[in-house]
Structures are given as structure tokens and as C-alpha cells.
């Protein structure tokens, strides 16, 4: 059974058809990449998975870990194990970065019937992950994304990912706005997180990120449909010839 199974998914936003029949199966242990030009529906797909308001599913289904998640609230989807690394992480002034993460972790634990994490265990976990991602120590005491540089914000997303350790990580253009050093660190973070029990869905414009996070499958999304799927060589091909070349295959 797949971890994530999307069947014939149709989505409208403000009455416009954005996704027009997506089919996608992701198994545990796999890394998938979705590539596509601007406006192809990449971000819409990530928001629909996460349950954002305003994205109306008119047809199809999303089964995650055996559950139909379309009926679940955004928080319950997160608690079931769907994590979205945002393209534009939101700033929340005055909210301590680490306190926030602890609240998030404990909300997820509570949903699973687990006790809140011990403060000392949490600190240990945080320290370990912070080191892995080369995050400055003071980031811990700063407000959530408030005044963070673009790179820090993206790193912080992966930091949250590694602490929350979900079943599925959806990375929405995590590479945008990153310099090559930061890109490597972020990719390392994702690779360190990834194991046979979880899956990664990378959404990106460029092949660059996929040199560091190597996908098992690459899908090309175009005008709300997956028009071609293949292995990692597809990304290279795409990089060479551009989206135009694939359009004719439709």
C-alpha cells in the first residue's frame, strides 16, 4: 500500500480549474520530484495536501497512510504526518522559535496519545538538529522567522522537519532564494531525515536541487496535469530542452 495515493484529483481556486486530474502514488522510502513551469499548479498541489482553505477539491481523492485526508483539518493532517516546508515561511513576531516548535511537537504527540516530551529530551533533540543544519545558536531564542534572512527561513523549515520527523515531507520550492552553500546544507538535512519509513516530495523549478536530493521519480506537471513521469534522468532532459519540448507530447 502506498503512503500517499492521489487519484484523479481536480482542484479549483476562486472558480478556476487549477489541477485537472492528478494521479500520483508515493511509497515509503521514496523521493519524488515534481517539476513544472510557473502556474502549472505545483504550489496548489502542496496546499491541497496540507488542507489550506480556499482550495476546493471537486473530484478525486487523497489517501494518506490509509486515511482519506480530505475530511481532515489542516492540523490533523499535520498530526497524521504530512509536513509542508513552505516556499515563504511566515513571520510570527514575539513567538519564540523553539517554544513554537515544542508546542507543535507536543500537539502532534498528544494526537498520537503520547505524553508531552520532557524538557531535557527536547533540548537535546533541538541541539542535535541545530548542529546538523549549522543553525546559529541564537536562532533558538529569536522570534519565529522574524527578521530571518531568506536562507535562515528555509533552514528553519528543514530544522522543524527534522525535529517533527513526519511521514511525508513536501518541500515547496525550498531551493528558491538559497545560495549554493545553504542549498547543500538544506539538502543534507533532508537526506539525513529521509529513511525507508518516510517519503519526500520535492517541488521545484530547477534540476539543481535534485543533484543533492536525488529523486527516485520525477514528474512533470503542466497546466494541472502530470504529463510525463520518469526517473532522475527526466530532470536532466528537462533542464536541457525546457518545458516547451514536453508540451508537444500532450
Amino acid at each position, binding site marked *: 500500500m502506498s503512503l500517499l495515493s492521489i487519484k484523479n484529483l481536480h482542484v479549483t481556486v476562486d472558480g478556476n480549474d487549477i489541477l485537472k486530474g492528478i494521479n500520483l502514488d508515493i511509497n515509503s522510502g521514496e523521493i519524488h520530484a515534481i517539476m513544472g513551469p510557473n502556474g502549472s499548479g505545483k504550489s496548489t498541489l502542496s496546499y491541497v495536501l496540507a488542507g489550506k482553505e480556499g482550495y476546493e477539491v471537486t473530484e478525486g481523492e487523497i489517501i494518506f497512510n490509509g486515511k482519506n485526508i480530505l475530511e481532515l483539518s489542516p492540523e490533523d493532517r499535520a498530526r497524521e504526518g504530512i509536513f*509542508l516546508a513552505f516556499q515563504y*515561511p511566515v513571520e*510570527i513576531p*514575539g513567538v519564540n522559535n523553539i517554544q*513554537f516548535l515544542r508546542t507543535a511537537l507536543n*500537539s502532534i504527540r498528544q494526537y498520537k496519545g503520547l505524553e508531552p516530551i520532557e524538557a531535557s529530551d527536547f533540548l537535546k533533540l533541538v541541539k542535535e538538529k541545530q548542529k546538523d543544519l549549522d543553525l546559529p545558536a541564537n536562532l533558538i531564542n529569536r522570534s519565529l522567522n522574524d527578521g530571518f534572512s531568506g536562507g535562515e527561513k528555509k533552514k528553519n523549515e528543514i530544522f522543524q522537519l527534522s525535529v*517533527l520527523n513526519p511521514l511525508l515531507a513536501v518541500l515547496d520550492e525550498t531551493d528558491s532564494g538559497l545560495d549554493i552553500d545553504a542549498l547543500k546544507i538544506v539538502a543534507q538535512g533532508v537526506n539525513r531525515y529521509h529513511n525507508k519509513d518516510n517519503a519526500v516530495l520535492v517541488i521545484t523549478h530547477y534540476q539543481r536541487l535534485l543533484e543533492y536530493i536525488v529523486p527516485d521519480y520525477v514528474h512533470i506537471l503542466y497546466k494541472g496535469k502530470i504529463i510525463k513521469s520518469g526517473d532522475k534522468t527526466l530532470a536532466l532532459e528537462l533542464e536541457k530542452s525546457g518545458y516547451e519540448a514536453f508540451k508537444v507530447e500532450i
Partner: protein
Amino acid sequence: MANEIIKEQINKEYEWGWSFDIEAETAPKGLNEEIIRFISYKKNEPDWLLDFRLKAFRYWKEMSHPNWAHLKFEIPHFQDIIYYAAPKKKNISSLDEVDPEILKMFERLGIPLEEQKILAGVTPNIAIDAVLDSVSVKTTFREVLAEKGIIFCSFSEAVQNHPDLVKKYLGSVVPYTDNFYAALNSAVFSDGSFCYIPKGVRCPMELSTYFRINTAGTGQFERTLIIADEESYVSYLEGCTAPRRDENQLHAAVVEIVAHRNAEVKYSTVQNWYPGDKEGKGGVFNFVTKRGICLEDNSKISWTQVETGSAITWKYPSVILKGNNSVGEFYSIALTNNYQQADTGTKMIHIGKNTRSTIVSKGIAAGFSENNYRGLVQIRKGASNARNYTQCDSLLLSDKCGAHTFPYIEVKDTTAIVEHEATTGKISEEQLFYCQQRGIDKEKAVSIIVNGYCKDILNKLPMEFAVEAQKLLEISLEGSVG
């Protein structure tokens, strides 16, 4: 199961809504000179104090109720209020013994009145004066404080034991002619806290007054007087709760602070009077006059308030900056939900040279509530190089609530620098979704964001109070998310 959860939520709305069955001795309803004489007699007061009360009462009778605030309410029926309620003493052999029922009540409120609970050898960090209805029932750690010459006791005791100090300072910051409710309070106040910090003494612990209304139909009119003598320092806390009752209860207190040369007073309030029910029925009218005077040079008075309770909050903790180089501060969080109303802010009156004041106000409105900031910054002639910075932020959590800002700035000295910043905002859908995507439900997300919004002010509170205030904000926001 669902019922259980709903029940739990409803009970959580106002956790302090219960009342204890404590037998009280009360005065008959209504207000006249007889009642005032009765209160004064009950308290065995000297003539000058009775005289002060009667003058205030006669002045009050001629006054009309003020109507300038941006508030809608029915003027209290002053003849329907009980002006004096004191818990009856039973089987008490010494004055220090407190009715076990009262101890139990304060214990349930989380206010420890038994000193022995503090571990031996450890300096306590807080001393408490507990005021129930009209009288102070217990002041803790008095002896520890007395060693340093600090006087911390109920107002009634101060009248008996330190009449000269009371006589000198009572009404010196808030005269009975000041306003309608200050006049009323001056006539009928029954108790409160008194605090004197002698020259050169830093008070070693937080001093705290805890107010509790228990008896139905009573008003609470307490009087607090804090005097910080030269080079002294004190941090003072005030907390309050009341039972859930259908009628509006009136709380009209007066707080006066005097800071002498180089003295500093920090006054923190966490106000959590019963706010009324979801339809706006009942709740406390919190009409309070709070004012401090930086009487001499280099003194400082700082007000920090977290106002989450009361049907109506109407108050302007203020500072008169008379001494040169004196400093006044006002940090405020006012949160209104359902049908609550608040018209609150401050007055900073600059008289001395090089005086500085800072005002930071955060208003949060939810439900159908009305949240107003009203503040006066006055730079008098001769207050050269006076400096004020004001920041007023409003956060709207629903589309049925209101937030208004009424800043008054009067500058009579050309060397003054006065700054005013104001913002109005909402919690964005993006912020909420971000929190939800991390597994945090909407209601919790709102409270996290609001707490973050208020963080600068919560940081001004003493540690224990900051934690309590944070929880209060959370509870007060319950049901504010659609």
C-alpha cells in the same frame, strides 16, 4: 464524550466564577451619611478620616455621572449597592487567626496565605495582602518586612497604627474632587493595602494585593496607598477575581503612589474580574483611578497592566512627573472578548525638567467587544526637554468588534519631543495556516500569536505573573475563533 468536552470548555471560560459560603456582616443597601458613619465606626476611625469621607460624599452628591467615555452601559444604581461587607469572625482567639473557610477559598484561588508553607531558610519572593469584599483578611510576611522597616498592611490597620503617614498622603495624588468614582471611593472605601518603604531600602520581595469579591450585591471600593521614600525600591502586584453573577458588580478603587527622590515603584496588575457571560450579562464594572506622582528628582513610576476581565474596564493609570529627570512608564495589554468594553490608557503629566515617559499599549478585541485606548500626554510650560514616546497597537480578531484610539497631546514647551505611533492589524490567514500545518489547532494558534504580540509587555511583568498572564490571555480568547 462530546458533551464532556463542551462542559469542560464552558467551565473553563471563567475558572474563578464560584463563590464560597462565607458568612458576611453587611451594611444595609444604599448610600447616605449614616452608612458612611457606620463604615467609619466599624473601622474605629479617627475623626479626620470620617471628615474626609463626609466631605467626599457631599462633593460626590453634587456631581453628575461622566459620559465622555466610549462605553455603553447603564449607570449603576448607587442606592442598590451594599457598601460594606466583612466576613464574620467565628471562634477566633487571636487577631492573626483567619477563618479556615477563607483560607480554603484563597487556597483554591492559588493564593497561599499560610506562611509556614514556605520552606524554612528560603527567603520568600512574595508577600500578600488578601482583600475579601470590603476588608483585608490577611497580610503575610509582615514580620520579615518589618525588620527592614517596611510597612505592609491593610489600609485599616495603617489608619490605626500609622495615622500620620496616612493623613499626610491620603488624597495627595488623587484628591476626592478628582472625578466621580474617586469621590465615591473616598466616601465609602472600606479597606485596601498600605505600603511604606523607608529611605534607602530595596524591598526584598514582591508585594502583592489580591482582591476577591465574594458576597453578592456588594461593591468593592478599596484604597491603596504606596509611599516610596528616598532611594527606595518596590515592586507591587495586584490580582483580582470575582464569582460569576448575573448582575453587574461595581469595583471603584483608588490607588495612589508617591515616589520621593531617587525612588522607584513598579506596579503590575493582572485584572481578571468576572467579564460577564457570552451574551454580555453580568460582569464587573471596573472603574478605577490609579495615579502616581514622581514627587522629587530622579524618581520613577512604572505601570504594567494586563486587563482581561470585567464587563467594562475604565481606567487610566497615570504619572505626574513633577521631579526633574523623573520617569513615567505605562505598559498595557487590554483584551476584550464577547461583549466586554474597555476604555483605558494613561496620562503622563510632565512638569519637571528632563522628564521622560513611555507608553506602550496593546489592545486586542474579539467577539463583539469594544476596545479603546485613550491617553493624554501633557507637557507643561517649563518642563524643558521633556520626552514622550507612545506606541498604540490594536489587533482585531473578529469583524464585529471595534478598536479606537483617542490620543490627546498638549505641548506647552517648545523643547519637548513627543512621538506617537499607532497600528491596527488582524491575524493573517497565512499565520494561522502555518501554525495549523505544524499540528497546532486554530484556537491555540490564535493564543500563541496574541501572546507573541504582547510579548514586550509580558516581559515587563515579574516572572510568576507573566506565566499567569499568559494563561489568562489564552483562556480569555477561548471561543473567539469561528
